[in-house]
């Protein structure tokens, strides 16, 4: 059989799982989680088969297409359900299904005591299906379906514990903020249709250069808006922190490894358009740079371990967007960092989850401390993830992040210097806040007290089913980067799709690496001085203005609340009033007017025959007069 036909199965498997688990009802409660895990693994296996098949081909012919059917045929508007599997989407497929399957496995343990575990796995499968659709779609409209599909899945999973109002609110917030991004995507699609008469990848990219730069820039910016929504980039980043209300596996899979990176995919995939629209690219890099600092700063101030990691995610994706914005210089490294980040960030989250698992779902790092002795496996895997993310030499993060910083400088000119510096500073801050997390969680003396029920938490290592995925991911976060970089394997793998160009870096690679190392040491050092040497206060000190701002996501939420939420409420309330008094009032007023007129005219009918006679007489007179008048004129 030829490989194309397998592509649909990649999606079909988890979709089937979702359908079965969600429609199946209670009778599947016993086995639901295993069905889910099995089907996601199946998808992974298909992925591997296809990967092997691709490797068999020579680099130019590594694009498989599968046309299922014509979706929306309307005069001139042709949307097909067609899948495209090339090196780029293949990378994502493996990442999604691989990490996804691991996290399925992990969840089996993590969600063990939740009576709605079956539904949880249903949602997870739904997510996988949507995400695969997103990366496999061959046209933007189909991509849009996956795009919103993952949004829905993340909505369902963030709000999985719906009885918690905070969770429900966070879910709603995530979806709506994403909708703003989606608006960008749909406008981009409309622009494409208006410009090219189609929105299928092939023709659009082929003719991209034919369109006016203005149009292309507009399309690019709209795509960026979409990316900002999905990848939690400034200014649409506010939802990611709250999204941590969801179960930790969800945070690991969706809000660290896969979904949030969809924005990066979109930009890299649309490289042809961005290459022709330098202005758009510039904006992309700016957004990336701002976000990577923003996220990092927020990450420094959070005491909630998951929120700290969320800030870190934001910042890391900032790196990717920055790289993607650099054009052919950065595309490959954006994706490479994305993959390595997928490993170590997922690992970190799973570690955090495992910690919470052992600590009665306590998330405040100030109530942790000295856990390394209680949960060694978690400690080691988490530590490896930590080293990877701060870019400890030899580990994944080192390779991927270093490349991005180089590329940033390689952009050249002042932009290059500015962007590069931002990246370097970001690296330093990353080192700081990750070290902080590490120290507060695993070192120092234990700080946990009995909770209000008087239960003293008994930290313990998590079961195998949870630790195994953590170990696998730790391995990944250690070796992936090296594996990719040695001999530029990854570069050669992706180049046919994204293209690649060495910019002209003002600094040598060695210099950049050195600078990075320095930043790293500074960051770690400060963190050690602040949290390693002195005991961590159980209640957060008031902290500097910046700290307090950072705790509140740099006041961005407050801004939204005041301007958008309050303003919106006032707007709707006043509109309701308008609708009731003005629009309705006009009509009711007319009716009332006729009523009043009627009441007044009615008085003329006073019951006196003589006044009736008067009216007749007057009428007769009028009649005569009018007739005469008509003759006169």
């Amino acid at each position, binding site marked *: 059989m030829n490989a194309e036909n397998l592509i649909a199965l990649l999606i079909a498997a988890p979709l089937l799982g979702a359908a079965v688990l*969600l429609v199946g009802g209670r009778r599947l409660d016993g086995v639901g989680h295993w069905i889910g895990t099995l089907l996601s693994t199946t998808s992974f296996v298909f992925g591997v088969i296809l990967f092997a098949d691709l490797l068999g081909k020579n680099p130019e012919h590594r694009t498989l297409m599968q046309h299922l*059917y*014509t*979706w*929306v*045929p*309307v*005069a*001139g*508007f*042709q949307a097909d359900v067609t899948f495209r599997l090339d090196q780029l989407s293949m990378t994502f497929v493996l990442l999604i299904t691989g990490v996804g399957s691991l996290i399925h496995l992990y969840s089996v343990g993590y969600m063990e005591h939740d009576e709605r575990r079956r539904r949880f796995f249903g949602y997870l499968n739904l997510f996988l299906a949507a995400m695969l659709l997103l990366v496999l779609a061959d046209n933007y*409209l189909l991509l849009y*379906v996956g795009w*919103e*599909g993952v949004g*829905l899945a993340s*909505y369902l999973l963030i*709000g999985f514990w*719906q*009885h918690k*109002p905070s*969770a*429900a*609110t966070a*879910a*709603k917030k995530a*979806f*709506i903020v994403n*909708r*703003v991004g*989606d*608006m960008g995507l*749909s*406008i981009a*699609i*409309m622009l494409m*249709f*208006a*410009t*090219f*008469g*189609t929105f299928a990848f092939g*023709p659009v990219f*082929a*003719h991209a250069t*034919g*369109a*006016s730069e203005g*149009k292309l820039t507009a399309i690019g910016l709209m795509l960026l808006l979409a990316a900002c929504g999905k990848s939690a980039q400034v200014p649409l980043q506010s939802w990611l922190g709250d999204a941590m209300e969801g179960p930790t596996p969800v945070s690991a899979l969706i809000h660290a490894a896969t979904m949030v990176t969809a924005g990066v995919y979109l930009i890299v995939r649309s490289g042809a358009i961005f290459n022709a629209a330098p202005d758009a690219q510039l904006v992309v890099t700016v957004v990336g740079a701002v976000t990577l600092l923003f996220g990092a700063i927020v990450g420094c101030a959070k005491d909630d371990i998951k929120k700290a990691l969320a800030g870190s995610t934001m910042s890391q994706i900032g790196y990717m967007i920055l790289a993607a914005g650099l054009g052919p210089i950065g595309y490959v490294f954006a994706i490479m960092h994305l993959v390595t980040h997928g490993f170590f960030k997922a690992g970190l989250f799973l570690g955090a989850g495992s910690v919470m698992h052992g600590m009665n779902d306590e998330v405040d790092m100030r109530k942790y401390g000295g856990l390394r002795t209680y949960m060694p496996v978690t400690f080691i895997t988490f530590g490896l993830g930590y080293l990877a993310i701060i870019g400890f030499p030899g580990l994944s993060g080192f390779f991927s992040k270093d490349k991005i910083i180089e590329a940033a400088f390689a952009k050249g000119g002042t932009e290059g210097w500015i962007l590069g510096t931002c990246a370097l500073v970001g690296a330093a801050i990353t080192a700081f806040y990750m070290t902080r997390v590490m120290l507060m969680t695993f070192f120092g003396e234990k700080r946990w007290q009995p909770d209000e029920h008087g239960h003293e938490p008994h930290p313990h290592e998590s079961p195998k089913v949870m630790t195994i995925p953590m170990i696998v991911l730790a391995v990944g976060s250690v070796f992936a980067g090296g594996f990719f970089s040695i001999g530029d394997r990854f570069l050669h793998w992706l180049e046919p799709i994204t293209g690649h160009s060495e910019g002209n870096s003002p600094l040598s690679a060695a210099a950049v690496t050195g600078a990075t190392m320095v930043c790293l040491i500074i960051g770690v050092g400060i963190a050690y001085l602040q949290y390693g040497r002195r005991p961590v206060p159980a209640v957060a000190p008031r902290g500097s203005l910046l700290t307090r701002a950072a705790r509140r996501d740099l006041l961005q939420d407050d801004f939204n609340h005041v301007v958008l939420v309050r303003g*919106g409420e006032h*707007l*709707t*309330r006043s*509109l*309701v009033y308008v*609708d009731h008094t003005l*629009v*309705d009032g006009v*009509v009711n007023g007319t*009716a009332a007017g006729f009523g009043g007129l009627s009441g007044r005219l009615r008085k003329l009918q006073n019951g006196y025959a003589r006044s009736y006679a008067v009216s007749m007489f007057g009428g007769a007179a009028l009649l005569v007069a009018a007739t005469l008048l008509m003759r006169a004129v």
Partner: protein
Amino acid sequence: MSFPLLTATAALPAVGAVATAAVPAARRTAAKWLALLVSLATLVLAIVVLVRFDPGGARYQLTESHPWIADFGVRYELGVDGIAVALLALTALLIPFIILAGWHDADPLETGSRRWRPTQGFFALILAVEAMVIISFEATDVFLFYIFFEAMLIPMYFLIGGFGDRAHAQGEEAASTQRSYAAVKFLLYNLVGGLIMLAAVIGLYVVAGNFSLQEIAQARANGSLHMATSTERWLFLGFFFAFAVKAPLWPLHTWLPNAMQESTAPVAVLITAVVDKVGTFAMLRFCLQLFPEASKWATPVILVLALISIIYGALLAVGQRDIKRLVAYASISHFGFIILGIFAMTSQGQSGATLYMVNHGISTAALMLVAGFLISRRGSRLIADYGGVQKVAPVLAGTFLIGGLATLSLPGLAPFVSEFLVLVGTFTRYPAIGIVATFGIVLAALYTLVLYQRTMTGPVKPEVSAMPDLKARELVVVAPLIVLLIFLGVYPKPVTDIVNPAVKQTMSDVHKTDPKPEVEAAK
């Protein structure tokens, strides 16, 4: 002559209505079953029409034509094009669900007089409405259409005013006064619209000398019938006003929230999913065909009004405290999209609009009927009275969520396709309007999810803690609708294939062609 299929599709429910009304007072259940069977039989007939209809064939098919009132130049002329067939099928499809959903809505509370037979009346009226709607979809004679367009109001009026939700917050007395207010409002709005249209209809006769849609359109096309520009515009306005009230278009919309709020959920569905469609359908069939130039002349204003409807309706939906009112305002927003698509005058826009009519029918039915089940359990329409339902009635919550997602036109569900077509169709000709309209999708997400969050999630309110989940009957109502939503979302081709030729025709009626893309990239 062949079997009068179209007449049959309309006559069957009409006869059924009479029969249902005639069922003796004691035999309520019999009346229900009779009505259900009749509606199902009508559905079968509609399917036959669907099968017999050949998308590639003549513009109007299965035509029938008999002299009726020669003095008024009126003929009994029926015929369906793709658009009509689609809506005919939608109507015939929804009615059985409406009947089934309203199974207990009309069981008399107090046994007043022996002769008072609300149940029979309720179902008879529904069937009567179905018959009239169907025939107004089929009529190709302006007068014939007008007659049923108007007559439709009477049964609707009794449905709205006569039957409301049980256990009203302020007691039965207040409920009945509010109901009759809503009913009167509904009737007066539409009656005024209709009467103004009557003036235009008469005017049309004075100008054209007959009422046959085809003849007039033909005469307009080959120039044998010339209309003075001002005349055409006045006539167009007369027609459009009536349809805009029915649709409803801002600022003529205020009757809809009251009507939908006070009537029972099935009737609300009947109003917004079936009856209102006649308005948008008529814009497409009559306004554009009879008065192409005037339509183009009025387009800018209408587009702006449609745009206002979209945003305004959505914003008001966000501000509502009453579930049904919320859905009503959401519908106003959606009708804005439909009208936008019709008057954007692009194939995508108009196909999208037609598709939208069908999809909006199904999605609103799903959402509103589930909402009805919810309300019937708690006896309150106020959002604030609910909370945590998801915990006690997961299936109900799930179906409600899917209905809501369809309303916010989530990709993969039917409404998405149509909404996107409308947006694209508008954008290619009026980019600014297209972009503003896109804000509608954000607001849609807002009001739907806020509704879901407030009613279904959070801690379980004590009043709802004992709420039962969906019963078998209710599932039978909801499940097919949801399946349909998903199917049409994934594979809308069956509908678009029927609709496209008709839209092509309409486009040529108004002498419009789609704008060309900047770069001809499509293969």
